[in-house]
């Protein structure tokens, strides 16, 4: 034990001796970690946010199918579904997409009932009447609009439709609301020229989460032309979308990892003549091979743990305090209107451990292995640096 402490002390002082070299290693190392960890922190935070929004939502979404495709659903269906035991609130929804040919952007349009408490994250007010609407950050920015101004949309019949913007969603919910325009249900029905008694889909809340699948089955039996989609299915879809999206991130991830292994490899293939000589001297005056390994492990651990912590901290600052300015260009490729967002701080410990494992282990191996090789050669040869 005392031997270990003494060697650790020696390791610290010998790190201090090669200030420039060790400093450069720590800089490169921690920047690599920063890049990798930024990607990980950002994707897991986005995913988490998306899932959170979904988890708060309805348990089942019921669509009607016509010819195997999504079609409008009679609002009467809601009354049938309500009667199934265990079912809570059942609500027909009206929503759709809108393509803005002027700005080449896709928006989602959602209808809400007047006085609905559904959206708490508003700057300004929820629409008070059919001539008012509410927009997401992305829409507001694209249209250079702000509360009080008018928004002009043109429907499929070529009829212009203008409404006053009563409020915008806060950036915090941007992932969800960025491309969103909210009308009152009545206004939206008119905009879409939707006949009465029909809705886009119906949301269903189930009291007991364990009964969701059962309720979905019952709906399917009672209303054979519908397709009930459970929250789990939606989550899966989201997961796979995110996994697909993180594919691009993964490319960055692997290329940085590659750069890192090149660095590590470079170190592996060359500990300096001077370092070999020192190991030879230590062996010659009675250090065990194990003592030399301990020394090099301590040195490597100090460097890699320091760099790792610096890297993780920088990544945290980059992603959560500065809103990932370096990654936004990549994210922008995802959609025309990617939110100017504020990722919600969330750290996936498992990912951080994996990252630590994937970087610390190769680095340690790359420094300890060549030292070990020097430590098992005859001191006379090692001292000559061969």
């Amino acid at each position, binding site marked *: 034990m005392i031997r270990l402490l003494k060697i650790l002390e020696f390791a610290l002082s010998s790190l201090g001796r090669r200030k420039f070299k060790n400093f450069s290693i720590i800089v490169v190392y921690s920047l690599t970690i920063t890049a990798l960890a930024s990607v990980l922190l950002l994707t897991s935070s986005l995913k988490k946010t998306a899932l959170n929004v979904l988890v708060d939502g309805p348990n089942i979404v019921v669509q009607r199918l016509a010819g195997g495709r999504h079609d409008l659903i009679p609002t009467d269906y809601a009354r049938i579904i309500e009667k199934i035991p265990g079912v809570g609130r059942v609500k027909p929804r009206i929503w759709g997409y809108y393509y803005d040919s002027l700005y080449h952007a896709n928006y989602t349009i959602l209808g809400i009932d007047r006085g609905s408490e559904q959206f708490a994250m508003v700057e300004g007010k929820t629409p008070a009447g059919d001539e008012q609407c509410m927009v997401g950050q992305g829409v507001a920015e694209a249209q250079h609009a702000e509360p009080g101004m008018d928004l002009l949309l043109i429907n499929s019949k070529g009829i212009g439709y203008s409404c006053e913007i009563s409020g915008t969603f806060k950036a915090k919910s941007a992932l969800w609301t960025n491309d969103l325009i909210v009308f009152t249900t009545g206004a939206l029905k008119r905009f879409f020229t939707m006949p009465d008694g029909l809705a886009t889909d119906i949301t269903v809340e189930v009291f007991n989460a364990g009964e969701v699948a059962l309720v979905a089955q019952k709906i399917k039996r009672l209303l054979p032309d519908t397709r009930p989609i459970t929250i789990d299915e939606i989550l899966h879809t989201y997961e796979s979308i995110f996994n697909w999206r993180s594919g691009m991130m993964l490319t960055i991830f692997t290329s940085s990892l590659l750069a890192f292994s090149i660095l590590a490899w470079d170190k592996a293939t060359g500990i300096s003549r001077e370092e070999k000589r020192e190991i030879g001297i230590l062996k010659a005056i009675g250090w065990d*091979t194990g003592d030399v390994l301990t020394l090099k492990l301590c040195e490597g651990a100090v460097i890699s743990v320091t760099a790792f912590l610096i890297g993780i901290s920088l990544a945290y600052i980059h992603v959560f305090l500065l809103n990932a300015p370096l990654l936004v260009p990549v994210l922008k490729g995802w959609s025309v209107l990617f939110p100017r967002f504020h990722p919600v701080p969330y750290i996936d410990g498992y990912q951080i451990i994996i990252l630590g494992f994937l970087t610390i282990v190769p680095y340690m191996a790359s420094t300890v292995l060549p030292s070990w090789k020097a430590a098992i050669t005859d001191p006379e040869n090692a001292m000559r640096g061969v």
Partner: protein
Amino acid sequence: MAGIIQVERISKYYNRNQPDEVRALSDIHLTIAAGEALVVNGASGCGKTTLLGLVGCMSRPTSGSVLVDGRDVSRLPERFLGDIRRRTFGFIFQQLNLIKSISVLENTLLPLYPGKLSMKEMKIRAEEILARFDLNTRAGEKVSRLSGGEQQRVAIARALIHQPQVIIADEPTAHLDSVLAAELLDILSGLNREGKTVLIATHDPFVSNHSLIDRVIRMRDGRIID
């Protein structure tokens, strides 16, 4: 008593089976009794350093064996040798082999890191021995800034600090003036009287003729001639 060395029919080649093959030692047979003080003499290139290196477990013979306290060290895996070197030998290298970028004190302390002494005890011991070699005022200085003689004394201090059974010194007076050389031989005499084995390679007649020395061995072209 510990400190018996038996060298049995050893030969040492460098660059074996290559165009630049050198036969540095041939068929050396030598027994050094515990507590003996012995000098190896001979022209430059005759193999003194090579012999000392084999005895001190710094390298391995091409053939033959080296026994330290009856144990054949020439075939032992490297991982067992650290312990033997530390317990048995204090080696003063011809090339000194100091770590130039650290201080006099740190160089002197090096052999004690693997031992049981606390850092504090180690420092006390180092100060003691540095004072004996008139280096106590330079303890904090980087070795690279010392003169040749001062560096030699650091190398000697480092070889003695862990109180080894056998002291192996390769040209220990090469960089010392006569006063310092006499001082060194006094110290070695004291240690020898305590029962330590002393093995020195030297050209220096002052060393060979010193009262400490029990026996002088002459070498030529890798062989012992008498």
